[in-house]
């Protein structure tokens, strides 16, 4: 087996394990390349099907093409698509673009808080109704106890410490010092009531693996990742006030792979275009503990 085949097999195994063990399961889909690969792997695992809902946290500041793309594939692939948001912060203009919060606080409000309360079912979830072709408020307010997330160990320090199956306690806290052992394809799938689990099928993938896999499988990735004539492309997607495109000539996947392997990005971290990472050294770690992916 090649390196990519091995990665794929382990991810599929983990997804199947999660599906078997957790009844109340959801997968986060940020529309970015990693979680889109994760979605693709889910279709691999379940032979074309996606047997659990996908959740997108809409901050209201996502690049508009991301939302179009999301809904296009929700329809095409018959996804059980859920959307959550922090409507009170957005409604009262308590955000960074409104000048009320700094970047970290804004992420916390629009992502962490929104995620936490949408997962728990306390805040309304919108569900895509395939008959109506539009979103309606979901009647199901049951808490999700298993959350599948597309984080990778190579992204930055704190993510390199994760498990494939990582427990979070009632407060969604993550005890990095005391994590369960994982060995021989056996993961922690037993939980005391009230605990949650984060499942990380992409932990072993690198940014380059992701792109090589997208190329190999011909996954329809959102075109924001490509230079479409203006000499710029997004390397990582987020909210438009805080995510800047990078200079690049890569117009297709092959170009990106080439750029990552030999070009100018070889030694520059992927999230370098994300401004919130720069505000404090441990900012991401803090957000992470609070549940932001």
């Amino acid at each position, binding site marked *: 087996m090649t390196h990519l085949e091995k990665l794929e097999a382990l991810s599929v195994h983990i997804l199947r394990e999660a599906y078997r063990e957790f009844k109340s399961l959801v997968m986060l889909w940020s529309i970015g390349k990693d979680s889109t690969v994760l979605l693709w792997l889910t279709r*691999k695992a379940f032979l074309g099907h996606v047997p659990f809902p996908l959740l997108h946290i809409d901050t209201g500041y996502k690049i508009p093409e991301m939302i179009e793309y999301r809904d296009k594939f929700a329809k095409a692939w018959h996804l059980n698509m859920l959307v959550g948001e922090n409507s009170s912060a957005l409604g009262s203009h308590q955000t960074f673009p409104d000048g009320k919060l700094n970047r970290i606080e804004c992420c916390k409000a629009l992502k962490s808080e929104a995620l936490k309360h949408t997962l728990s079912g306390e805040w309304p979830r919108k569900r895509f109704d395939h008959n109506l072709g539009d979103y309606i408020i979901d009647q199901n307010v049951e808490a999700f106890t298993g959350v599948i997330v597309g984080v990778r160990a190579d992204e930055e320090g704190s993510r390199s410490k994760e498990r494939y199956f990582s427990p979070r306690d009632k407060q969604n806290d993550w005890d990095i010092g005391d994590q369960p052992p994982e060995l*021989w394809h056996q993961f*922690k799938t037993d939980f005391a009531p009230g605990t949650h689990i984060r499942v990380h099928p992409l932990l072993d993938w690198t940014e380059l693996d992701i792109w090589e896999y997208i190329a190999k499988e011909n996954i329809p990735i959102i075109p924001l990742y490509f230079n479409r004539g203006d000499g710029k492309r997004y390397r990582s997607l987020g909210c438009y006030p805080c995510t800047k495109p990078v200079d690049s000539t890569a117009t297709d996947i092959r170009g990106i792979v080439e750029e990552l392997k030999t070009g100018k990005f070889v030694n520059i971290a992927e999230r370098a275009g994300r401004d919130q990472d720069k505000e404090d050294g441990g900012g991401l770690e803090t957000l992470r503990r609070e549940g932001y992916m």
Partner: protein
Amino acid sequence: MKDSNLQHQMNVVVVGHVDHGKSTIIGRLLADTHSIPDGKLEQVKATCTRNAKPFEYAFLLDALKDEQAQGITIDTARSFFKTEKRRYIIIDAPGHIEFLKNMITGASRADAAFIVIDAKEGIQENSRRHGYIMSMLGINQVAVIVNKMDLVGYNEQKFNEIAREYSEFLGRLNLRPVSFIPISAINGVNIGARSTDIAWHKGPTVLEQFDAFELKDSRTSLPFRLPVQDIYKFTEAGDDRRIFAGTISSGTAKVGDEIVFLPSGKTSSIKSIESFNTTEKKKASTGEATGFTLTKQVYVKQGELMVKASDPMPLVGARFRANIFWMGKAPLIREKRYTIKLNATRSSLKLVNIINVIDASDLSSEKNKQQVDRHDVAECILETLRPVAFDLVKDIKFTGRFVIIDNYEIAGAGIILEKVADQDSTLHDYVRDREFSWESGTISPAERAAIYGHGAKFVVFTGDETTTKDIIATELEKQLIHSSFKTYYLRMSNVIRGLDSDIKYGPEEREEHIRRLGELARILTDSGQIFITSVTNVDDYDIKTLQLLNSPHEILVVNIGENKFNSLVPDLNLEAGAKAGAAVEAVFSLLRQKKVLLDFQI
């Protein structure tokens, strides 16, 4: 692709006693192979200067605040680098005993291992313990690094002493290290480059050893084993395929192969190999996470082991001898029920006997220990509640190892050494003891039957259709009572909310529900009644358990709908959707046949 050789990747773990230099070695290796982002090294150096502490390569790896505060690696950290030959993931496993489960997590993912020993301090307890764990995890490519040679003046003698002593230790574990490498991580000696300081060393440098490890997979030539992870049927999505999904742990299978599921023993053959977004597949091999459809539909539960009829069979049994490594906070004891996860199956597990407890740090053993404590390695006899399929670790290691769950945590890991002959199970022993001391009144069962006018019986309805089962059972109770028979129909929901309200409802708890039901049946049948209940989808072992617990009284099994038992033959089979009237009549005639109801009374 231009660099197709880089499609291969190897996971290598670095272990060793705390402070023997793992992080320094890895940091140095990353720096020497230019594998760290531009400016990172300078940044870390600048931070050190600012905080007035000497620069350490280990800091490069310390990505976390927590970790830096504590000054020790608390979890496995992964670093990436590549050579001309292939890509590597280095797993930095913490040496501190407190973090042993992290070390095991890291090491279990490795294809090869480096064990680091400090030349000055020499072999420490954890150097040995880690060697033991490598052998248990099944990592057979191990290289030993003797670090801090600068502190012993690059003395060859000193190096040879350590190499000799440690080889001898590993030899007792049947582990032959591929090389011993003297280095000084701090001075960068023998990591990427050689140095005149150790001109006497003719073996590989650390970097050369990386490329010298072999990345071969011998698993494809082994017998075919597929732990059935799940069985899918996405009918609502308009998909009628019934797919047996799982990751092939060894061997190869192709379309047309005859297959057997164990422990049920059911057979079929492979109709197709299912996949998404690939060309049609005729064959699937080791490591693939795949799916099969079968020509003949068989009822099999998830967790069974799918094997090829032409291959050597795995073993099936409930008792085995194993080496286990205990990580749990609470000790492993005999009085408690645990859960075993073996391949794709889980079962309730009991410790039958401790043969001996081994101190992994010096291999000395202690024979009379009554429990297995945290960080102990023990040889013991374990018993699963129902038979499971497995291989011996010496034959096929992938299907011969398991983990033990205690209180929701993976508390132990083990490898199976031998199947233990089918003696009486612990349940048999228990029932024998219970019956031995059972105190009866002066009324014998025969006398009771004579007075009541009928014998006692435990009638179990099963099948997947809950509604018909309940209707039939209710009707049976009514008609028996109306014919003056002492009868009671107990609905399982009443037990769950009452007698069983202290236990959850899940796969392992199910066994406890069954046990209590069996005990209850023993009492009610002893009172001379016809005790009726209905339980959804019981299997052979559930019935055997109920039968055993209800003894000396007898059980009658009525199956409704498809018969899913492996070998057990129900006393009565009724069609799905059978009418209550006819069904009750059939049960009546069976009871008559079994002499529970005597003819003249009806």
